[in-house]
């Protein structure tokens, strides 16, 4: 199996966020909110790091 860097990062973010959400919060509502927050942070971090590397290269 060959995934692109981006698709691998999104899959990583998805599964890690599910586990973080379930384990780090108590109520169902908080778990969903925290899971979504982690996912957004992971994927947002990918974009920020991508642009930072692009700026460094140019």
């Amino acid at each position: 199996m060959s995934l692109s860097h981006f698709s691998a990062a999104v899959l990583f973010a998805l599964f890690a966020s599910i586990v973080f959400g379930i384990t780090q919060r108590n109520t169902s509502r908080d778990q969903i909110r925290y899971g979504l927050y982690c996912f957004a942070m992971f994927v947002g971090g990918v974009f920020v790091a991508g642009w930072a590397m692009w700026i460094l290269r140019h």
Partner: protein
Amino acid sequence: MANSSVRKKEIAPGEMQVARQPVTAMSVLAPAIGWLIPGAGHLLQKRWIRGFLLMASIAIMFVLGLQMQGRVYKPNGGDILDILGFIGDIGAGSLYIVTRAMDWGQGAIAHATADYGTKFLIVAGLLNFISAADAYHIAIGKKP
């Protein structure tokens, strides 16, 4: 003053107050089974949705790591990163044991995607450690 009459328990210097949790069968079984089979610690305590979500997430992550031809670390006493890689991998419990028994996975990284796979394998194990700790917290009543 009225407040001055309230007696407070004094703690001697160096004395630590430790809230001891009673050791129950569930508080031992849940994390142990949860480590061996990802999500099973939650299923054992009837947290069905959480258990199946954890099981699916960790198992899929581990299988994706194998499919990407990630490196499976073996017990070693060499480089510190290899030792840490092994600790991460073994967190996946039975997934790691079956992988080693069936001789799946790669011993060395051949291309860039395989490096992602190696990270998927390690992180799946580390997430399972967190999951097992969460099962323990449920068992001792610290978490609903």
